């Protein structure tokens, strides 16, 4: 895929005449970082990596229904190596042709793409299609996809060689939507983890998941969102996730949610079973409540509480309060947050506070962002400090409406690296031949 698309780029650039009739969007971000890292016992390292993100969108071919979209990035290191593996790296995030039919919201995408269908979340090299089926006020919609899953850099990433699936949904206008979805990945590994021997055993050489999702709305007052995910390869539930939101008066929103995961079913096909251990004795449940109140268009206050219950580690609770304040007719945005995590026995607890301000009158902007954690105890194997903080100042100037030059400077200290100063320069451009929404 990458080999196919990269040579295409100069071709696209060289023959603009053929593209005159088309919408063209090119966007990108160039980031040059500067970081000094000193870990006691190791040589001091200076890192100056440069990263380039590039997106190209070509729209409105074939009577306006066909378009092409791609996005990717590359990095080269100046000075010392910034990652353990290589001094340069690239990735193609996506590159696909998109046909959108004028009828029935039918759409076909061919190439590398991200897929979100119910509980299906994949990066695919292949084809996907969807359409509404005979519907007006209620009806079915169908989507399907097939291809190869995008591999990671690890040789053994437990991904397969064929990925296919789809989702069938039924909707009643303004009331409900229910969906059933299915994925099959041929050749993907499903592992199980044994704690006593710290080993992972292969139990199936495919990954198959099925699930159900639901939306139910009642007079715009109550909204229920949820889904359940079942691991067919292992005959084990993987996930239940349900949220109910109530909006009793304008501006006030209250929500309650329940999430539950079986590690055996959910983590079975993790790329690294030692990072996400598919241990059959472990499961996680969390219950949370949150409230947000928009006093007016300028002030929003939030509160949230979550109770976590991890079977093998015990229970924890998090409480948070926050506010967002917009001043000077939208030119100044500020925010304040406080969180407290009371962890299960044997884990560290901490306080966290954050504040930011962003002033953007148009031609230039300036912002300040500060975040700090205070741990109850020092962290094992790190320095004895119980405090971590980072303050970032950022400012930029719009050379052209589509070209922004900005820089960030941050200073801080933390138990991992001690004192740290980092900086970066960023050039962001987003050029389109139309005012329409090609690439955002």
């Amino acid at each position, binding site marked *: 895929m990458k080999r196919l698309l990269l040579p295409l780029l100069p071709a696209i650039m060289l023959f603009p005449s053929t593209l005159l009739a088309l919408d063209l969007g090119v966007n990108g971000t160039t980031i040059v970082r500067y970081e000094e890292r000193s870990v006691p016992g190791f040589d001091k390292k200076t890192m100056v990596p440069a990263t380039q993100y590039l997106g190209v969108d070509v729209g409105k071919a074939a009577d306006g229904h066909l378009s092409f979209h791609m996005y990717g990035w590359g990095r080269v290191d100046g000075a010392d190596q910034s990652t*353990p593996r290589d001094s340069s790296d690239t990735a193609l995030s996506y590159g696909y042709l998109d046909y959108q039919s004028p009828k*029935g919201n039918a759409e076909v995408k061919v190439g590398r793409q991200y897929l979100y269908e119910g509980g299906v979340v994949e990066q695919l090299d292949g084809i996907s299609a969807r359409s509404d089926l005979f519907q007006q006020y209620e009806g079915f919609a169908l989507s399907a996809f097939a291809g190869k899953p995008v591999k*990671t850099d690890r040789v053994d990433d437990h991904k397969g060689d064929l990925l296919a699936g789809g989702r069938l949904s039924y909707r009643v206008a303004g009331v409900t939507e229910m969906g059933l979805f299915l994925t099959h990945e041929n050749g993907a590994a499903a592992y199980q983890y044994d704690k006593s021997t*710290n080993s992972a055993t292969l139990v199936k050489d495919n990954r198959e998941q099925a699930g159900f999702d639901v939306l139910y709305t009642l007079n715009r007052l109550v909204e229920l969102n949820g889904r359940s995910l079942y691991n067919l390869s292992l005959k084990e539930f993987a996930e239940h996730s349900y949220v109910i939101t109530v909006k009793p008066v304008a501006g006030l929103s209250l929500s309650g949610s329940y999430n539950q995961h079986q590690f055996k079913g959910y983590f079975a096909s*993790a790329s690294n079973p*030692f990072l*996400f251990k598919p241990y059959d004795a472990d499961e996680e449940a969390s219950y949370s409540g949150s409230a947000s109140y928009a006093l007016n268009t300028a002030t929003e206050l939030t509160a949230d509480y979550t109770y976590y219950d991890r079977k093998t580690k015990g229970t924890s609770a998090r409480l948070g309060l926050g506010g967002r304040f917009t001043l000077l007719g939208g030119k100044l945005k500020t925010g304040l947050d406080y969180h407290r995590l009371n962890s299960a026995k044997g884990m560290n607890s901490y306080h966290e506070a954050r504040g930011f301000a962003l002033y953007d009158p148009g031609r230039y902007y300036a912002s300040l962002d500060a975040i700090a954690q205070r741990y109850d105890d020092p962290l094992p194997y790190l320095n004895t400090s119980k405090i971590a903080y980072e303050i970032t100042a950022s400012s930029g100037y719009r050379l052209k409406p589509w070209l922004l030059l900005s820089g960030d400077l941050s200073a801080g200290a933390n138990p991992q690296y001690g004192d740290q100063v980092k900086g970066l320069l960023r050039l962001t451009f987003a050029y389109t031949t139309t*005012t329409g929404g090609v690439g955002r």
Partner: protein
Amino acid sequence: MTVRSFATIAAVLATILVTAACSIFSPESSFAPTHPEALPAGRPLCSDCHEGSQLKGALKPYATFDHTADFVKGHRFAAGRDAQVCGVCHAQSFCADCHAGKTELKPSLKLGNRPDRELPHRGDFLTLHRIEGKIDPTSCYKCHGRANNEKCMTCHRR
């Protein structure tokens, strides 16, 4: 389910689709592939402009897509139902800033000029994640479970 039964189901579905194509697909006109109107900065409340109406095709009130704090927190549900609606305004690269299968920069570093956005992992997350990862590793799996995690492997080999 075996590969064979899966292939059979897929083949049957495909046959049904192709033969019934003309009569089964909705003849309603599609919604616009890109948002026709420029939006002011910040998160949009769709119902401010699309008052009281339904987003045709999605068969839901526009209010369902209002970008409130709750919507942003639970956007996974709307994304799983109506990814095509998201595509009206968002390029996939917008999502990939937080959801890339392979990327190196933390979202809060790439977008250090946007402290007003809801970006994960602000500040010293390398220390903090030792706690957060243990409290609930399932919340991390969503983005890191099957992604390119070379950076993590320096410490999480076994």
